[in-house]
């Protein structure tokens, strides 16, 4: 994975000092909260319900054991012994003191981490495929492209006060594990005439007006990659709406202009920008790509598995994915124990995952947008040992992709924007469906919960989606079906009137019962819903 050189170190160190100075000015009263807020947000520091919340960037979701141990250390020293992995492949601490924030950033910098641009109206942390470098189906490793964009977007002087936040995702496989087309810019690395380049989708997003990004350019060669994105962003910075924050995302601009007009504007801007010489040379790409060279896989690693332990066999089937190298597998550690808090991990669990990553996965770990952790390169021969250690730490829930593998935002238990709690609902649903046999019978079922319209819990992209709303001071939940964040991307449709917390668990059970009764061979819940449409589900739920 990428390692800082003197320049990267210098920039991050300067940022720590800059933020220390900004915090000191705030504590000394030299700047008001109104002036400080955009500065702290640009560094991922929010004021939430109970305290300050700090969001630490995990660029494209990749980290090593040293970084993971540091996250555990900060949880113990500055927070309350745990962290929350987010749908943006980052980590959040919920109980941070403003006066500690500069020291935390200084500690993060020692392991090449930071909180730069994890909030604010700027280009956020670049997200990517959590199986990058390991997936059997990828064309190439997308992370060198993502790292190139991390550098390009860091403190970009022109794009630090955009109309609204801006999220970019890079993938390089046909299977979309990162909800690429639900980003402001989604990039798929593709091949044309033997050359790698980028297919650029612009204007996706969730939030209050969910949209799927249309294709804006089918192939941008590496030589034009940064220039083209610069043009995409400049058109947005100049013409994106600033009169209404709910209409300020690029998806609204593209919706209002139309993809063709936006593309024409970008092409015109690109013609001007391309002449500036702002594209890094191939040598820079090669320098970065060298850090992502495959690890020294053992060509003789045995490709067989002992499945005699039935609990282990279930976990193998559910949480272990195909690796591109024989003898290896990709392990996804579920942070969704039944009745637990989706995405939360204690400092001890974070340390253990770090140790497992170091010992069994070439010192690499990944954070997924579904709030789980991946060990990307595990020898099949080591899987049983890994599983046993995970089980001892309460980390061996065999529910990846099942109904209890719920994405949930922090909701009203932590978040000052939320209208309803998300976590207790996730706990109730997981508990209702806790039987693993029943969950596996239901098969792949992506359930996603957001506690407000901002959709941090990706409810629009859930096969089953839930949106919490405030109805006259009482929590109420809207149900939707038919969303997907994968390559068959779609947006969910609301079923009808909302439910209480208990009512929605019952409604979900009625819907899954209908699915079990009506499904045809090989159909997932989503497929049956798409085939039958909403009517029979509505009848089952409300009839």
């Amino acid at each position, binding site marked *: 994975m990428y390692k800082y050189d003197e320049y990267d170190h210098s920039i991050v160190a300067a940022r720590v000092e800059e933020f220390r100075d900004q915090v000191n000015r705030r504590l000394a009263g030299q700047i008001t909260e109104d002036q400080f807020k955009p500065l702290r947000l640009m560094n991922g520091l929010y004021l939430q319900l109970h305290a300050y919340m700090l969001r630490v960037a995990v660029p494209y979701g990749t980290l090593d054991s040293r970084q993971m141990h540091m996250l555990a250390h900060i949880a113990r020293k500055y927070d309350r012994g745990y962290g929350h992995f987010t749908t943006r492949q980052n980590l959040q601490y919920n109980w941070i003191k403003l006066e500690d924030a500069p020291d935390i950033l200084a500690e993060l910098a020692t392991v090449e981490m930071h909180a730069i641009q994890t909030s604010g109206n700027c280009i956020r942390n670049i997200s990517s495929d959590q199986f990058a470098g390991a997936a059997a189906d990828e064309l190439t490793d997308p992370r060198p492209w993502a790292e190139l964009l991390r550098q390009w977007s860091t403190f970009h002087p022109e794009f630090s006060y955009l109309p609204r936040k801006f999220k970019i995702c890079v993938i390089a496989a046909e299977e979309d594990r990162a909800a690429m087309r639900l980003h402001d810019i989604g990039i798929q690395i593709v091949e044309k005439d033997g050359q790698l380049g980028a297919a650029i989708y612009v204007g996706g997003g969730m939030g209050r007006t969910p949209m799927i990004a249309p294709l804006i350019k089918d192939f941008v060669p590496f030589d034009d990659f940064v220039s083209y994105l610069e043009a995409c962003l400049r058109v947005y910075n100049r013409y994106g709406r600033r009169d209404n924050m709910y209409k300020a995302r690029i998806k609204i601009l593209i919706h209002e202009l139309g993809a063709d007009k936006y593309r024409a504007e970008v092409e015109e801007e690109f013609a001007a920008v391309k002449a500036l010489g702002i594209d890094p040379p191939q040598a820079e790409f090669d320098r970065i790509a060298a850090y992502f060279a495959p690890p020294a896989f053992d060509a003789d690693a045995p490709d067989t598995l002992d499945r005699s332990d039935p609990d282990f066999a279930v976990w193998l089937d559910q949480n272990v994915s195909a690796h591109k190298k024989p003898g290896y597998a990709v392990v996804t550690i579920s942070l969704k124990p039944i009745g637990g808090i989706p995405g939360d991990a204690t400092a001890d669990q974070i340390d253990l995952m770090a140790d497992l990553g170091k010992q069994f996965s070439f010192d690499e770990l990944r954070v997924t947008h579904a709030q789980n952790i991946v060990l990307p390169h595990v020898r099949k021969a080591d899987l049983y040992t890994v599983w046993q250690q995970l089980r001892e730490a309460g980390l061996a829930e065999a529910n990846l992709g099942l109904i209890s593998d719920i994405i949930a935002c922090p909701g009203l*238990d932590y978040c000052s924007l939320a209208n309803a709690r998300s976590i207790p609902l996730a706990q109730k649903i997981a508990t209702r469906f806790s039987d693993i046999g029943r969950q596996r019978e239901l098969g792949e079922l992506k359930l996603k919960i957001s506690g407000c319209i901002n959709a941090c819990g990706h409810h629009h992209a859930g096969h089953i989606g839930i949106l919490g709303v405030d109805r006259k001071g009482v929590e109420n939940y809207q149900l939707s079906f038919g969303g997907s964040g994968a390559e068959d991307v779609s947006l969910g449709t609301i079923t009808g009137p909302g439910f209480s917390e208990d009512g929605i668990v019952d409604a979900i059970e009625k819907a899954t019962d209908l699915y079990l009764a009506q499904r045809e061979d090989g159909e997932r819940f989503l497929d049956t819903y798409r085939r039958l449409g909403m009517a029979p589900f509505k009848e089952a739920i409300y009839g």
Partner: protein
Amino acid sequence: MKLLTGNDLPTGDVTWWSGSGWSRHVEDAVDVGDQGEAIAHAEEGARRVNGPYVIDATATPEGPRPAHIKDRIRALGPTVRPDLTLKPADPNAGSWVI
């Protein structure tokens, strides 16, 4: 009744105006009547509070109860982590929120 609440600037802790200063405990909160904005302005200027705002609440024998669930969660702590609330030893603390 009206309460004045905000967060402590250096620590971010939730605080309540107690009549003479800021308390971590909603039980100490006093009715600010129509003085909330004025107190908020002075206290924020002195950096003794961050982001203060006035809320509705009802007086109960156990103390003031904020009208909105969000402020009750602020007063207690996350309902999903009773161990991290201000009343970790009280198994029924969460029912006060709902």
